[in-house]
């Protein structure tokens, strides 16, 4: 590999050589952030000089860069390439203003047989010349990206104190040829950076609103396969499907309660779109709203004790909250929580419940915004025009959302402080309705 090429080109070349055609190309829009935590992730030494199908250091660099919190050193600026702590010349790295340095190596692992590796990394503080973290993983060609994301999670936790969310998944809908008879819709799941896409369902009829179960093992979604909107649950490991809402009218916007016992949803069975909760084991339905307005797009507070939802009872869509009791029934009256502008919809709570993200419409543009629930202050995070469906990462530091770019539907991520934004390009059709999964593994090894 020609190390003098700019980092971005390097990543593009590496990806185009080794990744299958259906994978996403991840393009960094902002990198090398001013004021971010400086970190250099040195390319990992490959086993016996052979190139691996994945560039672990590049994946970790991209992961940390997307958060907006790090200032990652471009590979083309590196002139030393240690792969072991004992080979690090700390003076050199301090001179580069690199407070943190990550080195690593990939060794063949005979115990796993052919195609097995041992991946080791170390994170050093270059001022104190001390190791902050170091781990070793077993891997094969299929789990290299997974290990890279686990390394990112460990480094992130070590340097920020917050659990990383790189080893998580996203779910989304892909649509092709929608104005023709050849229209096709797909429900997909991928790694949090858009790689390793797996198609979970293909349909000639529209699919909408994927939502993750709290244990990350099921998706709820809306399908029009019977000619109108109905809600299904699907187990990811087996593909087993279950129809759970086919009431007259609209069945849409499913959201799992944090305790997994209920789904909130929007149904128009009683004449117009209202919020309901459905208890999964008893199939008991509780009606939560009752108004002539459209009430839709519910989302659970992480405590499970309230819902937010979109309602146009005030004339145009705004976001309201309402308390929910232990039976899934409403407590009291809805309280409006958005007051700026004429259009605020599709709210979602951050994992700690302190923020909501939503779509704020103004002057014919629809943008992702966040609002601090304590202070009531709102901040618009994007400069685009047709944003939809914001979803928080499991640790609440980033949002993934859908937007239009060059007349295509694409996914983008933005850090909650608005500092970094990344677009995931697509190879075919339009992509929309992303949902970021919960943590998939219990917290361990510092991640």
């Amino acid at each position, binding site marked *: 590999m020609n190390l003098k090429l700019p980092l971005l080109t390097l990543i593009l070349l590496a990806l185009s050589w080794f990744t299958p055609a259906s994978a996403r190309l991840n393009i960094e829009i902002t990198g090398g952030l001013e004021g971010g935590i400086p970190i250099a992730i040195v390319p990992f030494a490959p086993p016996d000089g052979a190139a691996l199908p994945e560039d672990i250091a590049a994946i970790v660099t991209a992961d940390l860069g997307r958060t907006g919190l790090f200032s990652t050193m471009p590979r083309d600026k590196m002139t030393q390439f240690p792969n072991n702590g004992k080979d690090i010349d700390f003076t050199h790295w301090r001179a580069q203003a690199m407070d943190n340095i990550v080195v690593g190596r990939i060794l063949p692992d005979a115990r796993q047989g052919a195609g097995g590796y041992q991946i080791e990394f170390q994170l050093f503080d270059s001022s104190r010349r001390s190791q902050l973290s170091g781990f070793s993983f077993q891997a094969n060609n299929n789990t290299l990206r997974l290990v890279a994301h686990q390394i990112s999670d460990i480094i992130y936790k070590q340097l920020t104190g917050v659990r990383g969310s790189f080893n998580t998944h996203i779910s989304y809908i892909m649509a092709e040829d*929608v*104005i023709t008879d050849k229209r096709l819709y797909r429900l997909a799941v991928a790694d949090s950076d858009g790689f390793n896409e797996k198609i979970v369902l293909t349909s000639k009829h*529209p699919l*909408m*609103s994927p939502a993750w179960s709290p244990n990350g093992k099921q998706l709820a979604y809306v399908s*029009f396969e019977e*000619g*109108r*909107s109905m809600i299904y649950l699907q187990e990811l490991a087996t593909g087993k499907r279950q129809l759970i809402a086919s009431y007259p*009218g*609209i069945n*849409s*916007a499913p959201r799992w309660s944090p305790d997994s016992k209920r789904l909130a949803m*929007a149904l*128009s069975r009683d004449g*117009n*779109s209202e919020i309901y909760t459905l208890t999964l084991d008893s199939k008991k339905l509780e009606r939560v709203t009752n108004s002539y307005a*459209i009430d*839709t*797009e519910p989302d659970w507070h992480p405590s499970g004790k309230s819902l937010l939802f*979109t309602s*146009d009872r005030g004339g*145009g*869509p705004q976001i309201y909250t309402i308390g929910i009791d232990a039976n899934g029934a409403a407590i009291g009256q809805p309280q409006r929580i958005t007051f700026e502008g004429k*259009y605020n*919809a*599709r709210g979602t709570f951050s994992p700690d419940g302190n923020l909501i993200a939503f*779509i704020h*419409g103004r002057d*014919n543009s*629809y943008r992702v915004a966040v609002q601090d629930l304590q202070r009531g202050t709102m901040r618009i995070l994007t400069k685009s*025009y*047709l944003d*939809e*469906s914001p979803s928080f990462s499991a640790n609440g530091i980033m949002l993934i959302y859908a937007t*239009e770019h060059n*007349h295509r539907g694409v996914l983008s991520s933005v850090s909650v402080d608005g500092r970094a934004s990344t677009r995931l390009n697509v190879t075919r059709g339009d992509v*929309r*309705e992303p949902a970021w999964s919960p943590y998939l593994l219990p917290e361990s090894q510092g991640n």
Partner: protein
Amino acid sequence: MVGCSSDPEVRDDEQAQMEAEAAARAEAERLARERQQAMSDAATVGSAAYAKKIEAMLSDPSSPLSNHVFYFPYDSAEVSSGDREIIGAHAEFLASHPEIMVTVEGHADERGTREYNLALGERRAMAVEMLLKVQGAADKQLQMVSFGEERPVALGNDEQAWSLNRRVELIYSGY
């Protein structure tokens, strides 16, 4: 009654009356023909010839029935007065053909959030369905579905495309 008179004024009155009676007779004959036609229609419901006849009625460019897509302003479910008249013609058609069904499909343009747009499409479909009902269509003839922004007919991030997607379509079946 044909009368004879030499007085011009009286002759004009009689003339007018003759013409009125002739017109009334012609109208009665026309209605009788139509009734007979309807009866013979009813007798052949379900046949291929019948289906062709219905299809012809629904696609006759000079008939309001050939207009089965109705458009809406942004964020509105209000039916225009011109469209109300056309929907009235559809309602009469449904009333006189009780075995025919129609699906009222509601749609929205791409702006804003998807699930809200699903409900907005339904609001538009409900407005049209209500007009059909009050003007003679029976409940059992009517089905309603909203596709929100999921089934556009025009691509493009501009008002030209958006205005074509903010619509309600009538899809006939049962013949």
